[in-house]
């Protein structure tokens, strides 16, 4: 699957590693927020906590990935309010992959605009929600 992906998209080795990192951080941010919400924590508190800890985590040299904190914060937004529409892990996985793709493709668009991360999360959840609710 990885070979097909690399052949189809034709990314360089660095870009490929970056996209894998993005996917890992997306999963990390999403699932940690999702579990906090499942444990009946306030959804906004969960998202802020995960965003803050993501910043502390990505500041360390061992995980010196530039966009790490942004990816974690973005995926934590996506985790708010998806409990009602996503029921299985397959659906969640599709959401995470789509979120990663949208994040990577919009990396150089609207740089420095506040709310960009939220918009990415909104677009992704809206697409998945619309597809799943389609009769």
């Amino acid at each position: 699957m990885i070979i097909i992906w690399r052949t189809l998209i034709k990314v360089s080795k660095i870009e490929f590693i970056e996209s894998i990192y993005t996917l890992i951080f997306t999963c990390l941010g999403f699932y940690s927020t999702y579990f906090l919400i499942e444990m009946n924590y306030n959804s906004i508190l969960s998202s802020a906590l995960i965003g803050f800890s993501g910043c502390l985590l990505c500041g360390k040299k061992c995980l010196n990935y530039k966009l790490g904190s942004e990816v974690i914060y973005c995926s934590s937004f996506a985790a708010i309010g998806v409990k009602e529409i996503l029921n299985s892990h397959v659906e969640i996985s599709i959401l995470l992959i789509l979120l990663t793709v949208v994040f990577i493709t919009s990396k150089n668009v609207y740089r420095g605009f506040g709310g960009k991360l939220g918009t990415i999360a909104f677009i992704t959840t809206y697409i998945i929600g619309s597809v799943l609710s389609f009769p």
Partner: protein
Amino acid sequence: MFLSILSCLLTQVLVRRLRWNSVKASASVTLLFYGMFMFLESSYYIDTSNYLKVVFGASFAGMTKVEISWISTSFIIGVLFWLFFTWVFPYLPYQGGALGFSAFLSVLTYKKLSILLS
């Protein structure tokens, strides 16, 4: 509206003065206000859930990179965010993303307006 402006300004202050990462600043502002609201809720039984949403969303708008006159810019973006939060946010699904989307709309409106008026 006051909370929206305050949150936006506070995030900008943390980013510009303390040189914090914008994500860290936004999350810190939300956590700070969450603590304050929890205290208010437990002491005076005030429902603060909507206020927290305003603070959270306005802190996204405050993450915007502003080169000049950041105080007035943050002020205007804060007001615009409040307008979008009042008129657009209730019609959008998926809370987390919708707040960010409202913030993005307010920043985009500000940028377009500033280009038109200059």
